[in-house]
């Protein structure tokens, strides 16, 4: 058995919301005045039906039929067994992975792009805006908007717009309007262009333009869309883990020992892991491992605290694992894994001990990715290689212990647009950049004077 497929009528019909089951309540994001941020504060950028999901405490949220009808185009995604990798590692472990690279955009991102577009449409929104660099999220959202009849405006950083034609073309094929940023369409863009007409742009400018277009639409028919970090994004991704549970049950794998996902903003990891975190809360013995780069050890080495979002200390405070706002991570080739702070839901699961974060080195990731490509065939995205590195570690451990463990992980996307990173690795141009202890301590000192979040936990795990 290599692939386990579900029929369309077996697809999960509800998303799972971990917030309902966390043994301790989530700490709310705080504004500069120390009070919780209200849903109304987000209303200019998100429709209220998505904001309701963002703050929901309901355990199960029904997936609309119209959303499912689009997801069926690639979902349920295959659960595959990595038999060739198992043989190469001579491990008794059975390694399963959800192949999220089969989506039209090539990653897990459409799992939230589609429902976000649908809920916006239900709210009466006619256009979505977003920003993008090389274009992974911009193409996923363009795809979703095309299928739902929404306009999509993607502000693509000018240097990327000029250097990376393929995802730009993907967006256009899907009907998205891809604009080089800075543009003359927004005040933020015009201000920048007035200072430097030849500026190559930046993600910060592109975000400013996308948000400005949504906020200043006099008709109120435009909103902004974000592909990671927030609770409703992770909620939408739980379809990955929910499908996996059904698929494992279908082949008689009733006990999963280890669940692994790479952890950047959190949605990739949350998608595969949160349904199993629920099992763990209810007594199951499962090791659930978010994997992060050793160069940016947000979960593995940093204290849990309220951290200011910026140096000026003016933006709201969010409870999260943090290295402090003076932290600078070393270079790695995995853009999605560079968030300063982890998503609050993932942070709280870590505080409770429900998940066991792990850090891996960049070179180990690429070595594991090459082993994967040369055994299983698919070329993984750099972010996905972090999960694969941890899978290899666990499979070897199982061999050494002589245990037939069941390992499940999220193969979150292909790396066909990231081959230059592989080239750099194979050419010997990459190194490992673990965060030195003195740098960590220096970073931690920057948050010493700030209010500390209470690390509330039951002590059960």
């Amino acid at each position: 058995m290599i692939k386990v497929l579900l029929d369309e009528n077996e697809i999960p019909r509800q998303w799972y919301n971990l917030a309902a089951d966390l043994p301790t309540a989530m700490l709310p994001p705080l504004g500069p005045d120390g009070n919780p941020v209200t849903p109304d504060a987000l209303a200019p950028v998100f429709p209220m039906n998505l904001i309701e999901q963002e703050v929901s405490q309901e355990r199960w949220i029904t997936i609309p039929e119209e959303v499912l009808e689009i997801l069926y185009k690639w979902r349920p995604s295959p659960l595959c067994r990595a038999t060739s990798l198992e043989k190469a590692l001579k491990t008794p472990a059975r390694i399963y992975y959800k192949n999220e690279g089969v989506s039209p955009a090539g990653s897990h991102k459409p799992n939230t792009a589609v429902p976000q577009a649908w809920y916006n449409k239900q709210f009466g929104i006619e256009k979505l805006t977003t920003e993008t660099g090389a274009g992974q999220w911009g193409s996923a959202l363009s795809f979703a908007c095309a299928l739902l009849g929404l306009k999509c405006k993607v502000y693509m950083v000018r240097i990327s717009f000029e250097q990376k034609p393929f995802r730009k073309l993907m967006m256009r094929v899907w009907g998205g309007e891809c604009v080089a940023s800075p543009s003359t369409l927004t005040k933020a863009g015009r201000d920048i262009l007035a200072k430097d007409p030849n500026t190559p742009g930046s993600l910060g400018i592109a975000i400013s333009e996308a948000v400005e277009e949504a906020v200043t639409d006099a008709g109120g028919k435009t909103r902004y869309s974000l592909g990671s970090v927030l609770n409703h994004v992770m909620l939408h991704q739980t379809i990955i883990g929910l499908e996996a549970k059904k698929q494992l049950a279908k082949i008689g794998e009733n006990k999963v020992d280890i669940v692994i996902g790479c952890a950047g903003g959190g949605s990739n990891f949350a998608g595969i892991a949160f349904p199993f975190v629920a099992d763990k809360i209810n007594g199951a013995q499962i090791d659930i491992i978010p994997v992060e780069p050793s160069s940016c050890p947000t979960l593995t080495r940093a204290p849990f605290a309220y951290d200011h979002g910026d140096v000026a200390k003016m933006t709201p405070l969010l409870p999260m694992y943090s290295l402090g706002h003076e932290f600078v991570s070393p270079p790695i080739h995995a853009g999605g894994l560079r968030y300063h702070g982890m998503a609050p839901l993932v942070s709280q699961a870590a505080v409770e001990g429900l998940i066991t974060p792990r850090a891996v080195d960049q070179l180990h990731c690429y070595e594991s990715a090459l082993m994967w490509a040369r055994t299983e065939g698919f070329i993984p995205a750099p972010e996905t290689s972090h999960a694969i590195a941890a899978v290899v570690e666990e499979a070897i451990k199982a061999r050494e212990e002589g245990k037939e463990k069941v390992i499940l992980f999220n193969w979150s996307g292909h790396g066909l647009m990231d081959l230059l990173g592989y080239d750099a690795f194979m050419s010997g141009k990459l190194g490992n950049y673990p965060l030195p202890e003195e740098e960590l301590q220096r970073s931690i000192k920057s948050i010493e004077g700030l209010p500390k979040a209470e690390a509330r936990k039951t002590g059960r795990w």
Partner: protein
Amino acid sequence: MVEVSENYDTLEARCPMLGHLVSFRYCRSLDRLPCRRLMQCWSSQIDVRAYLEGRYSAQEIAAILAPPPPKINQLLELVRKAKGDAL
């Protein structure tokens, strides 16, 4: 390691945020100040701290090296700014 005195504007590295190669010139001239990821992305090729200390004040270097705020914080700040600009 390239010495500070050398011109390394044409050197290239992969920008993890954009997802493709960029020149050092792009990173050093991103905005009023260089990209906040200058040190993490370029330290393997050049002496970034020496480069910064030769061109910027301690306060500017601290501002350069500060990491980005979380997304939700960025969004709320941008909403406030966009609303203010629209008035």
